[in-house]
Each structure stands twice: as structure tokens, then as C-alpha cells.
């Protein structure tokens, strides 16, 4: 470590600094250990038991049974697949789209720029519940706005959230509108920071706009892109209110995600806490791997 190169300090000083540091850390550690680490450990322990509502949450140790069941559970795999679809579709769409909007508006006059930035950020501020209830009405099969417009234009009404194939796209559209606000703000800032002398020099050399974008702008907004990818990934994994209020995981589990299934198993259907916790543990491991990889990539990208 770099610190070993510093002149050796006296042990007393070192000890004092350690004590002081932990005093500074105390409030944060209290909440972190008490309300994140501790429940996490408890969750891991419960996942090896058969705790459920029927036995008052006081399960007995059943080894890996919950995990074995998990890997044989078709509904779990279906939900896992839906989760992956949501992440895999939304991350590139949100990233590409917000980059495009960002580059389209960052050169605008500040009034227009903040107008657009504001418009795209509004659904984030509003909160997913308020957004979902109005979308639910627009999607409604019999008295929804979309079907009204379609039939008024002479088309056939669509089933929207009623259809196992369309429902997940309905979820994705809402997720999209609540996800792109923040990335756009970030890209506008990042593009504004691109060294304009480089851009001008390239234009003098006769580079096209597209070339300027790929050769100069794209590399310099790379750190932002990675950051956007990470927050969008986390957001997509966490998508819960949307599903609970819009489709309740249906039709036929076509919009069920691991997160939602976990909630259902714990509180609605089986009330099986051990099994739900096992699901949580597996999900946590997957997300941890995901973010570790992204964090590594990001750190690699920003080393100066």
C-alpha cells in the first residue's frame, strides 16, 4: 500500500487516529451494520430453514433444501428470465437514448436545454406509484386511452397488460420513462465538459460530425456511460412497484421478476420465509457479481 511510504508515525498517534476515525464512522456504521448487514446475515441464516407463517417464523434447519427447490422451480426461472430481459432491454435503450437526447440538447440555449432536461426528469421526481396509476388507466383494455385512440383510428383494440406477450413491454415502456431523466442530465453535463478545442481542431481537419462524435466525444463521456449503465442496471433490478401495481406479475408469470416473486412467496401465496430468503440470497449474489464487474470496469476506465 502507498501509505507504507509515509514516515512512520508513533504507535500512540496511530492508535489515536484509529479511535477518532471510528468515532467519525460510528453513526454510519450503526445504521449500516444494524439495518443492512444484520438483516442480511439473518436472511442468509433463515434461507437454510423452513421458517414460514405456519410455524411462526421459527423454522428448523433444513440445509440446502430451499436452494435445491429454487433450482428446480420453473416459476423462479421464468421470473429470473424476465428480470434478465428487463435489465438487458432497458440498459442499452436507456443509455443510447439518453446519450442521443443529451447530445441533441446540450448545445441548445440554456432555456430550451433546461426545459427538456426538466421534462424528461419529471417522471423520476413524481415517483413510480403516481406514474403507474395513470399508465394503468391509459393501458386499460375497455376504457383506456390507447385503445380509444387505436379504435378511433380504425384499428383493433390491443390487450396491453392483458396479454402475456405484450405485458412485459408495457412494463418496460413505463420503466423507460422513469429511467432516462437522470442519464440525460448527466450526459448534458459530460458533453458540456468535452474539450471544445479538440472538437474545433478536428472540424478544421475536415472531420464529419459523426467522426467527431466517435473519436472525441464518445471516449470522453465513457465514464458517464459506465455510470449510467450501473445506475440503470440497479434501477431495473429493483423494479417492483411498477409490477405490483400494473400486472401483479401476470399474465401467467410473464411479468414476474425475482424481486416480485420473492415478495409474493413471502407475503401472499406460500408465506414461506425460508424459501423467499433463499431467493433473496441468490439474487443478492448475482447483483453483487454484476456490480463488482461493473465497478472494476468503471475504475479501469477512469484511472487518470
Amino acid at each position, binding site marked *: *500500500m502507498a501509505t507504507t511510504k509515509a514516515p512512520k508515525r508513533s504507535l500512540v498517534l496511530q492508535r489515536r487516529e484509529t479511535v477518532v476515525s471510528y468515532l467519525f464512522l460510528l453513526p454510519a456504521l450503526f445504521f449500516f*451494520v*444494524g439495518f443492512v*448487514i*444484520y438483516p*442480511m*446475515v*439473518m436472511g442468509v*441464516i433463515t434461507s437454510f430453514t*423452513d421458517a*414460514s*407463517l*405456519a*410455524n*411462526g*417464523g421459527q*423454522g428448523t434447519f433444513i440445509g440446502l433444501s430451499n436452494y435445491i427447490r429454487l433450482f428446480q422451480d420453473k416459476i423462479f426461472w421464468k421470473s429470473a428470465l424476465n428480470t434478465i430481459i428487463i435489465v438487458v432491454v432497458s440498459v442499452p435503450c436507456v443509455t443510447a437514448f439518453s446519450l442521443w437526447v443529451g447530445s441533441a440538447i446540450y448545445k441548445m440555449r440554456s432555456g430550451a436545454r433546461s426545459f427538456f432536461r426538466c421534462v424528461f426528469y419529471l417522471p423520476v421526481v413524481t415517483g413510480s406509484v403516481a406514474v403507474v396509476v395513470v399508465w394503468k388507466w391509459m393501458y386499460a*383494455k*375497455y*376504457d383506456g386511452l390507447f385503445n380509444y385512440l387505436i379504435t378511433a383510428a380504425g384499428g383493433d383494440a390491443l*390487450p396491453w*397488460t*392483458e*396479454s*402475456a406477450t405484450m*405485458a412485459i413491454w408495457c412494463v418496460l415502456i413505463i420503466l423507460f420513462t422513469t429511467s432516462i431523466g437522470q442519464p440525460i442530465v448527466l450526459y448534458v453535463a459530460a458533453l458540456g465538459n468535452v474539450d471544445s478545442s479538440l472538437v474545433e481542431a478536428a472540424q478544421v481537419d475536415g472531420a464529419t460530425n459523426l467522426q467527431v462524435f466517435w473519436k472525441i466525444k464518445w471516449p470522453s463521456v465513457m465514464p458517464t456511460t459506465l455510470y449510467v449503465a450501473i445506475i440503470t442496471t440497479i434501477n431495473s433490478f429493483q423494479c417492483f412497484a411498477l409490477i405490483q401495481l*400494473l*400486472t*401483479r406479475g*401476470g*399474465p*401467467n*408469470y410473464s411479468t414476474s421478476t425475482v424481486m416480485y416473486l420473492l415478495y409474493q412467496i*413471502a*407475503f*401472499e*401465496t*406460500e*408465506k*414461506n*420465509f425460508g*424459501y423467499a430468503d433463499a431467493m433473496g440470497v441468490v439474487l443478492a449474489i448475482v447483483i453483487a457479481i454484476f456490480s463488482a464487474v461493473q465497478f472494476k470496469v468503471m475504475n479501469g476506465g477512469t484511472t487518470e
Partner: protein
Amino acid sequence: MKKTKRFLALALALCLSVGLAACSNSSTPGGSSSPAADGGSGDASGKTKITWWAFPTFGVDSGYEQELADAFMAANDDVEIEVVTINFTDGPAQLTTAITSGTAPDLLFDAPGRIIEYGNAGYLADMNDLFTDEFKADVNNEGLLSSCQGRDGTYYMYPISSSPFYMGLNLEMLEASGAIDYVNLEGDRTWTTDNFVKMCETLRDSGVATVPGIVYCGGSGGDQGTRALVNNLYSSTIVSDGKWNVDANGVKALELLQSMVSEGALDVGNSMVASDELQNFQKEICAMTFCFGTSNEVSYAPIDDAYTQVAVPFPSDDGVPELEYLVNGFCVFDNGDQAKIDASKRFIQFICDDPTWGPKSVVKTNAFPVRTSFGDLYEGDEHMALLASWTQYYGPYYNTLDNFATMRNEWFNLLQRVLAGGDAAAEAETFNTNANTVTTG
């Protein structure tokens, strides 16, 4: 070197968190006993405070729960009652969280399905003392009494009223489309599957409604309606030998619904539960509802007399329906405080057996009293007389069978799969397997 250090640190952190876990574990008994102590003596006024959670069985937003609580508190100044109303969509999950977290209400107004599940799991106070010989003799109905009992025969629910589930039709739409020809409005209004199909087809062809009817299957809310529909069409049952089982006739009924949906004679509501379907019925988007009952026909009554609602039993191939029925009743959670249990029981008796409030409460549920001594509370009401005539068609009560909650979850998923075009026989087989898998201890 660096690695060992990191490993050591990790081990330490683990010890730290496990240590913490152990600490709070050992303190749990103290923690769980404190709320009880709190309720018993914490209140400066010395009142016993009880919490009452009520599903909207007295009607949505009627305020009657509070009225009852106020009346009881006026007569018993040692008890304080907090009323919490919950709904059928979120309420069940709320109950689970509350029970899990040790914050269950003291009193719950519900039906046997959930109550017996909680009772069997040991969360409820037994009600054996309320089931006196006088009460049993007054009820005089073995089936009904046994629906209040847990696996071991303990009484967990004190019943107040019961009523059948049936279908609702929109009279004006039937007349406008001509589908009225297939509906029997004479006598006890029983009718056949053939006529039901023809009615739906006529409604579809006339286009008076956006859709004739909706087989809702987006969740378990109000699923007794769709189960009754399926079971009546070809007189099938859902239970055989104490196991959940969709039989060959059930499969036939599912196939019929499947073909009706694919031909547009019915629609499927994959993201709807009964309350959604009922609201669509109320807004005249569909011409029938499969989830009518004494309370729903009041809660979802026509606005400004926009149409006339007609109650009919479920259609069946032999014209003899087998109706599901609702039993409304109360249970008391054992939250470790005998004073609260006693106060809750007193309040229950006030609601159900008080000479003035008892009959009034029954009428508020818009159902028939379980106590025969209450007599005919709806004298001269033709509609209630019709409903009373259907009690002879009550089918077996299965809501207290083990795995009921799991079965309900499997049921709406079965409908979703079949109505999306799945093979009815194979899907029913999946249902029969999954619904009987005991997944919880």
C-alpha cells in the same frame, strides 16, 4: 500478506455481525413481551386498547365499523377500540406482514378461508367458550359450524351471517340484445349451461356491451366466482377425497370457457380481479358479473339507476346449481394479553348477539343471520326471499381444507393458462399436483 490481512478483516466483520445477531436474538423474548406489557398497563387511563381490522363486509366506506365501536365504548368505558379497514386486494398480504411482525390486530372480521389458516398455525385465541349449546342449537347447521373449526376441532371463528354467491346480469342489456330469451327469471331462476352459452353469444353478436362478460383471473380476489362458474357448468367438484382436484367435468367446463373466450362470447381478464370486473359491470362495459353476492350488489350498485341488476344462480348442465357461500365471522388473535382477548370477545358478542346491534349488524352485511332465532330480517323483500330460496343449493364448504391459499394461487394461474389456449386436461393436471404440494410446515 495483503491477502491474509484482508481475510482476517473479513472474518472480523463476520464475527461482528454474527455477534450482533446473537445479541438481538437473545433479547427477542424481552422484545416480544414488551408490547403486551405496554398494552396492559402502559395506558395511563387503564383502558384495554384493542385494534380491529375489518374487510369491507359491512360495505365499502360505510362507517358502520366506527359506529359499532363507538356504541360499544359508550357502554364499556374500560375498552378502547381502534378501527382499521382493509381491502380484499392488499388486505391478505397486510395481514401476513402484521402476523409475521407480531403486530397482528386483536380482532379481525373476515371469512373462514384465512381465519382457519391462521388458527391452524396457532395465531388465534380459541373461541370454544362462545360456542355454547344454546348457540349451536340456535345455528342448527352442522356444515356451517364445522366451517368455523380448525383441524383439531377448535372453534376459531364466531360466525354472524352467511349468504350465497351468484351471478349478476344487466337487465337492459339483455333486453336490448334479445339475450333475455335465454334467461330464466321465473321461480328460483335456475338455468342451463346451453342457455348461458347462447346468452353470451347473443350479447356478443348484438354488441350492446363492450364484452359480454369477463373471466377475471389476475389474482385470487373474488376467485370463488370463477370457481363456481367452472364447477357448475358441468357439475364438477374441486375437492375429492380431501384433495384439491379438477375432475374430467371440470376440464370440460374449462374447455367450454376456452372456446367461448376464443370466439369472443366471453373475455379474459388476465390482470383483473373480481373488484375490477365488478366495476366494469357497474360501468356497463360488461353485461354480467360472476362475483355477485349480497354485499357486492350493494357496494357495486348501479349509479343513478343507470341499469337494473338481476341476480341469477350459476348455470349448470342439469339446471341444478351448486352454490358457494360466504360465512362472515370474527376471530381474535392471541397477542399474549388475556385482557385484550376478553375485551375482543365481549365486543364480538356485542356486535353479533346484542338485541339491537346483532340484527342490525346482520342486515349491514346484507346476508342471512346464522342464528335462526333472529328470524326473517328481510320480511317482504322479494329479492332476499329469492336469495333465501337458494340456500337449498349450497354446495360443500371447502375453504377450510389445508392448502387453501396455495390452491387459490394455482386456480387463477390455471385459468390464465387455459384461457390463453393451453391444453385444459394437462393444465388441470398441473393444478392438481401443485395445489396439493405441501410447501410449508
